[in-house]
């Protein structure tokens, strides 16, 4: 209903990648710990989310590279 009838399998792969990445935002494993301090001053919970943002750029590059809606430009 919410997706077109003919969703190509590749698009499901894109949706799966986004869903997994969205779930990775909820990093309960560093919830109560500040240590180790990465580089001596970045609490691990903060460092994780810095890396998460860099990885977001990589995921978005992947989506843009392989799932670009070029048909919209016609």
């Amino acid at each position, binding site marked *: 209903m919410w997706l077109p009838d003919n969703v190509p399998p590749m698009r499901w792969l894109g949706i799966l990648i986004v869903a997994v990445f*969205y779930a990775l935002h909820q990093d309960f494993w560093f*919830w109560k710990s500040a240590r180790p301090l990465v580089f*001596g001053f970045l609490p691990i919970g*903060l460092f994780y989310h*810095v890396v*998460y*943002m860099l990885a977001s750029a990589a995921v978005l590059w992947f989506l*843009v590279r392989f799932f670009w809606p070029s048909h*919209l430009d016609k």
Partner: protein
Amino acid sequence: MIPAIVVFLYLGVVLYIGIFAFRRARGKSSAEDYFLAGRSLGPAVFLFSLFGANMTAFSILGASGHAFANGIVTFGLMASSSALVIPLALFVIGTRLWSLGKRHGFMTPVQMFRDRWECGHIGTVIFAVQAVLLVPYIVIAVMGGGTTLRTISGGMIPFWLGGAIVSLVVMGYVFFGGMRGTAWVNTFQSILFLMFGAVAVAVIAAGMGGFRTAMESLLAAPSTAPLLSRERVSPWYFLSYTFIPLSSIAFPHIGIFCLTARKLTHFRKTIVLYPICMLAIWLPSVFLGVVANQATTVPAIKAKVEARAQLASQGAQLSPAERDRLRGQAAGDDVILRLLEGYAPLWLASLLGASVMAAVMASDSQILALSTMFTEDVFAFYGGKARFGEAIQVQTGRLFIVIFTLVAYVIALRLPQSIFDLATQYSFAGFSSLAPLLVAALFWKGSTRWGALASTLWTAMAVLSIAVLQSTVPAPPPGTVVSVLSIAGAQAVTRVTTGTLVFGLLPVVPMTIMSALLMVIVSKLTGATRPGKETLARYFSKEGL
């Protein structure tokens, strides 16, 4: 006085940019040119102006203030979730808005809704709700301008004059430059933000003798150690914050910005680089906000830390008025400013002043969006364009900018800021709750105008209810909860220090889910009112989207 001179130089530069854009556009009197820069923005200006439109005063000042009080959790709550959700929304929804705008000449999201659902007055209702949710930001910006100029000038410029100067400058470059001027100013402001963050961190680190010692000291003290982890926040609360960035694409000024790119491919760099730009601004803001807790050699910061400690230890015994006073004293929105006062040379403090002005002036694109919406969704829709022509339509848009800025200025002088702080706090939730409209319009054939109306009215009612609740139930002391509504023994709605929670979640979660459900249920019930085949073909066929 030097910081004030630098800020005035900055204001002069942005005003000139607007006038320069006006000269560049001479001879082009179409509404599309004025309101959308003729859909001609290049990749760099598109990236920086879209990013700048999303970065409000909150990104620099509010983020560091939140981190000062709540610690590193601020970064995960507001920055990293937005870094994924906002560019993803641009990828999935923004590109489609651009395509539809290019093909059918849409200039606002409401025009697309009216076409998609074959509705007229329901579009006007959506316009009204969007406009009401947007107005508080503009009033807050006037207030921020007045406060910032008063602080930077050491009190020489009073609040009313500071607000008037900032309003006139913003009105000036939006009035003359339209979207082209606004986009160029936003680009200039974004570059200023991006440069400022790294420099501020380096200078303050040097001033504090490095961050390692500061971090170890924070960890050693029981009152500050929790700031470096997320133990004070529940995972559900953390998760609920990921709904907030859905608001971005539903904000009309962001939707309208999506229509300004010259080519679809300009979205590519914007989408990929967006998280990097966010990182460059938010990491310094949050990190410095946390570190400020250790900068008690700065008298203003010491006073904040003491006020917070008093609030925590004696909060329950204090009157609500006394609690509010202490809360205001402990507020950390100016901690970066105070850190720079304490550790940075004058030249950097001056540049900061300009950056702060850039942040509080981010209302430009919102004023222009309101003007575009008014002239397209109301003036043109109800016959003004057909009757008076396009040139008059553009002049009407300019007149709207002048009148609206004056009204916002008068409101800013007469009403207390707390009202607008509250309104902006929940208008993010309101726009997230309007996001299902865009998803349904673009991806679900079965959606109807009545579903859209139900979602819109629900959003308006929910925002209003929370505003009334928070106005009538005062904020309790930190760490305590006031139960407002219980269902079967469970606390359904609670009032906490920072706002309102629904089953422990931010209100944005039930608001957005209910909005989506209403869209589905009401659309199913009113399936007979689906648009005709021709309309659906524009959105769902191979030739369409």
